[in-house]
């Protein structure tokens, strides 16, 4: 078994099967949801702030592949106690280090879904900057 496989089995599956901070907070100060239409991963993240814009608590729900759900679980541990401003500019590498396994471009989108959704929630309540991928609209077709 490769090291990669090992990590996946141990770390990812642990978070996938026993997600941390699972369940939406009620009440909450901020909430957002998002999906990765490529594979149907869905994540909703809710946040409660403490002093100023410190993230006091965070809870999530979702469904999708192990990487999307495990990475969101890891994320919730990572952000508690830090400020909205800090998280809005959190380099994705910090989360990816936590995930710990090399990811192909396809799986990268899965791993970063929760972080993107959280940034949207912070943006909505605290006006922090949105990550580029979430602000750019590329257009659509809508039939009446």
């Amino acid at each position, binding site marked *: *078994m*490769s090291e990669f*496989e090992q990590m*996946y*089995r141990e770390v990812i*599956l642990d978070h*996938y099967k026993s997600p941390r901070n699972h369940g939406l907070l009620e009440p909450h100060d901020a909430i957002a949801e998002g999906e990765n*239409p*490529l*594979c*149907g*991963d869905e994540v909703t993240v809710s946040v409660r702030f403490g002093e100023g814009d410190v993230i006091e608590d965070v809870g999530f729900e979702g469904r*999708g*592949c*192990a*990487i999307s759900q495990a990475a969101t679980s890891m994320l919730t541990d990572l952000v508690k106690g830090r400020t909205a401003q800090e998280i809005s500019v959190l380099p994705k590498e910090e989360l990816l280090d936590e995930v710990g396994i090399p990811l192909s471009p*396809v*799986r990268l989108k*899965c791993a970063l879904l929760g972080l993107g959704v959280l940034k949207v929630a912070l943006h909505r309540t605290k006006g922090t900057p949105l990550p580029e991928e979430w602000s750019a609209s590329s257009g659509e*077709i*809508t*039939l009446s």
Partner: protein
Amino acid sequence: MDRVSATTSHVLDTHRLRADFPVFEELFDGKPVAYLDSASSSQKPRQVLDRMRAFYEHEYANVHRGVYRLAERATEGFEGARRTTAAFLNAPSEKEVVFTRSATEALNLVAYAWGLDNLGPGDVVVITELEHHASFVPWQYIAHRTGASFRHIPIDDRGELQLDALDGLAREGDVKVVASNLVSNTLGTINPVERLAEWAHGQGAIMVVDAAQAAPHRSVDVQALGADFVAITGHKLCGPTGIGALWGRKEILEAMSPFNLGGEMIRSVGLQKTTFNELPHKFEAGTPAFAEAVGLAAAMDYLGEIGLEAIERHEHALVEQAMGALEEIPWIRVFGPPADRRAGIVSFEVEGIHPHDVAQILDWEGVAVRAGHHCTQPLMTRLGVAATTRASFYLYSVPEDLERLVAGLYKVKASLG
């Protein structure tokens, strides 16, 4: 070209055929890949790669306009590829064969060049619920731009088209286009395109057939289908990337606006007036992907020597074996029609486990399958899933690939179930 390692007997000597495909010499953790993703793209035989290389080394120059010998050889290679493609599709004339980048581009060509001029409010474009996005979205977009309605033929629970819905669709306006694939890339369903074509013509509509998934596996006869346009792609039938073809009926192609302008599609250019070249050049703007066309023809020759019928039988045996094995597993649900009404494609769900995780763990076992919506999101919606896992076969697939798939699925279940 080297002779292919096959006889014209009724059974493929797959183990010998595999030697034509260098990729199977590549080892992953000591084992060759169990490549079960041919519906996405096929692997390439040496014969095709050799032919392209020889073309680049001995016959290369830009096509059509050169007077010198290298240019003549290149043009002969390219136009010879067109004749091979016409024969492969049983087209009445090679002038009806337009080279494109892909099946997607071929379908867009029809939607843009025919659709923008011929559709408007009150008209209806009919596609199917199991259409690939490459056919679905261009028509949706052109319907949107022109004000035409956009309707689909629904499928039943086995993934087969419900033709009794047709009459209802006809009552919604003037049906001008019917577009369907011949083989569904997700379910493997073989669709009754001949009957749709008959119905379409009864409505005064054109029939556009997406044969991207059919042409690699069974012979496609554009005349027998009764279609007006048929799209295929090279990379799924042992050819290179960057090349596909559109066959279209001459009268319609001649009356149509061009799509993309410049290069050989032009007869004469003036500041006030420009005239277009005759078929098929009218639809081939700019330097075509001519070395890829030569590769495509080599692939068609390769398949022709083996025989598409033998390939089809081989895949049919594999799909029966696969469905038999998968349907025995209680935590697996197979989508789509029974084996005798489908091509070599099996989409399935592993209870409670996301297809991405299925594919990831299978990859560790050297089994390559596809996980996703397979560019058929409307079909996913109908099936009530976000994605499926899909195994698909080709001439080089062997029963051992399936055994490795099934063993891998048990590992998936053990890890994540």
